[in-house]
């Protein structure tokens, strides 16, 4: 059981800056995020896209913003639990008991939800029949590539993940690469490599096809794909992989007794507290009159929620407002020299 003054759900820009604010005022915190890397939407959706409305930063990409925030919290050595989704948040006396999908548990008076639009989950195939083969012969990520050796693998998608795996697995298996159009959006070098392997017969390329059905009783036997021209092909296959990127789903947050409307959580604008004492929501996931879904709003919300956490984490102390320019205590926490 991990005990902490505040647990932050979500390692996007808002979660990171909220962590900064908590540590600055002398509270502990830990961060949990379902993605395997820090940065949230900034890293997953638009790492290379420029952002122009961060105060005092005329232009930066999602990746640069994330790296700057990571640098800003570096002095605090904050414990981050990546690749884990918070599944349970339950009242336990004065505290909240929190449990992740991997079974890690936390006890904390404060839970701050900085979850964006929810947790990122892989986009799945649309035919319903795919569900029964999921994680047996249909995969949306690769954990152990050795299971594919010598088998027929059908890969769907047109981005880097699909192309990289097609190239990699073509060394040990028979690969079908299927994509809905002729253009691929992966790196040019990989696209060239795929075409080269297709020419030499190492990869069977099917473009302008989409998956319409999967066939098999206990084991997957074949797939049915349909061309734009309506022509249907049946392909024998042992495994199917889909790489259609990630989608955000509210997920378990919906089950924690919070006031949720249109995938956002209602909060007050003093503490950014939800209808549950000690649970706050900041960033894109919170809603209140006038809410703007901007990164800068998330920073403001996190700063105020952090102050609210102080009361519950240190009930016998009084929070004293201090500036980073002048406070010796804060400078000590940051590990910088005082004048």
């Amino acid at each position, binding site marked *: 059981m991990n005990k902490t003054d505040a647990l932050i759900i979500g390692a996007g820009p808002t979660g990171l800056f909220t962590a900064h604010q908590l540590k600055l005022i002398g509270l502990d915190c830990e961060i949990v995020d379902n993605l395997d890397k820090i940065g949230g*939407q900034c890293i997953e959706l638009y790492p290379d896209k420029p952002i122009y409305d961060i105060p005092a930063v005329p232009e930066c990409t999602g990746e640069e913003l994330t790296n700057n925030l990571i640098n800003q919290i570096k002095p605090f050595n904050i414990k981050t639990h990546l690749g884990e989704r918070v599944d349970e948040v339950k009242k336990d006396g004065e505290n909240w008991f929190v449990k992740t999908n991997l079974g890690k548990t936390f006890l904390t008076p404060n839970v701050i939800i900085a979850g964006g639009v929810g947790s990122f989950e892989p986009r799945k195939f649309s035919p319903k029949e795919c569900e029964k083969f999921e994680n047996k012969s249909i995969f949306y990520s690769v954990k152990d590539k050795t299971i594919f050796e010598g088998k027929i693998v059908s890969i769907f998608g047109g981005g880097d993940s699909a192309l990289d795996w097609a190239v990699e697995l073509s060394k040990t298996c028979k690969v079908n690469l299927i994509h809905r159009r002729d253009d691929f959006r992966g790196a040019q070098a990989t696209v060239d490599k795929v075409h080269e392997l297709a020419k030499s017969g190492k990869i069977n390329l099917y473009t302008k096809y989409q998956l319409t059905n999967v066939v098999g009783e206990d084991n997957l036997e074949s797939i049915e794909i349909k061309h734009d021209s309506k022509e249907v092909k049946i392909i024998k296959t042992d495994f199917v992989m889909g790489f*259609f990127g990630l989608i955000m789903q509210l997920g378990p947050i919906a089950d924690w007794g919070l006031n949720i409307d249109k995938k956002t959580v209602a909060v007050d604008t003093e503490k950014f507290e939800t209808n549950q004492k000690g649970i706050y929501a900041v960033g894109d996931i919170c809603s209140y009159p006038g809410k703007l879904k901007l990164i800068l709003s998330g920073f403001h919300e996190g700063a105020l929620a952090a102050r609210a956490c102080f009361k519950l984490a240190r009930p016998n102390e009084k929070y004293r407002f201090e500036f980073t320019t002048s406070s010796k205590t804060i400078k000590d926490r940051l590990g910088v020299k005082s004048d």
Partner: protein
Amino acid sequence: MPKIIYNTHDNKSYTIDVQNGLTVMEGAVQNDIPGIDADCGGGMACATCHVYVDEEWMQKLPQKDDGEEDMLDMAFEPKKNSRLSCQIIVSDELDGLIVNIPSKQS
């Protein structure tokens, strides 16, 4: 004000006055039309405002950006007439535009 017609997958039809300059996605979200999620808020980064544009209107819309086609790779059951509604800006020329909303966005 131009009228945009949103048809849902369960055969409901909504005719909405949408101000010039707003996107077809914003017209839907602001008027609580079901079936358009727009998770990323119009950043062409999520493909959850996917619509099928009525065939007759396809040619009248401005061309897709490369980025839009890339995102459509990830949409739920994309077709030839698929567009991201956040990339269609409403103007007088689009008065009467018909878009069909897929049965789901993910």
